[in-house]
């Protein structure tokens, strides 16, 4: 393993993570809800209860770039994947997060924060699958 020290951004990574944690804490302490993005969107698609707060939360995420732009230039967003890959990946992420009851936020941030073994297992599984997929794409198929 070689670490790419030029790409390593520990301060902004930790500070950004702390903001994500703060957002999850706000939603939990005031609204009593888990800030799991796939679950929040899933609840919208089910047209069940809590449509209002779910829409408000997603709207908040959507306007984050606009709010950022009031103060500073947007950080880089570089998407190398082609359209067909994006479609396959999107289908897998959408189906997989609902079938597995959570994603990086619900299982990763909130699940680990409440010391859930179930979420720890889920996080290890999707991270392991992510590592394996990138290994296959970049080091086996590309070689």
């Amino acid at each position, binding site marked *: 393993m070689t670490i*790419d020290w030029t790409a390593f951004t520990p301060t902004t990574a930790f500070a950004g993570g702390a903001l994500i944690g703060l957002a999850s804490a706000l939603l939990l302490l005031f609204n009593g809800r888990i800030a799991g993005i796939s679950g929040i969107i899933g609840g919208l698609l089910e047209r069940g209860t809590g449509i209002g707060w779910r829409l408000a939360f997603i709207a908040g*995420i959507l*306007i984050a770039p606009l709010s950022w732009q009031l103060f500073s230039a947007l950080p880089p967003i570089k998407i190398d994947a082609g359209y067909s890959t994006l479609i396959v990946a999107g289908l897998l992420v959408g189906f*997989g997060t609902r079938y597995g009851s959570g994603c990086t936020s619900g299982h990763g941030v909130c699940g680990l924060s409440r*010391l859930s073994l179930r979420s720890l297992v889920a996080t290890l599984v999707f991270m392991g699958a992510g590592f394996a997929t990138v290994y296959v794409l970049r080091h086996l198929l590309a070689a």
Partner: protein
Amino acid sequence: MKSRIIALMAGLTFGLGLMLSGMANPEKVLGFLDLAGAWDPSLALVMIGAITVGLPAFQLVKGRSRSLLKEPLQLPTSADIDRPLIIGGLLFGVGWGLAGFCPGPAIVATGAGQEKALVFTLAMLTGMGIFQFGARKTVAAQS
């Protein structure tokens, strides 16, 4: 109404955190998932930052049944480590590794006007819809 304002603020904070941390940039995410290449460990610090703030919040609500806005605390009840958790996690992880997007960052990048992020997000919503269609059929078959 108050809970919607909190949800909007939480979503905004969440989105800003994703941008600041680098999670909203698939190139950065894939740099973290590429253990065998030039590895960028930043995203491990995102997780640590988020849990540093999230963990005390989840400890605070332990044993309570209502939030600060007197809403019921709705925490996950399942502790099962079952097949859907593992298979869902695997599918999600493969999709994450293919494109470098998980649900939250895909929404932020869509808000930033990235056309490819919109394509991913639409595919993701379709994947969630397919899950829901399947789940409804399963429930109907069991009843």
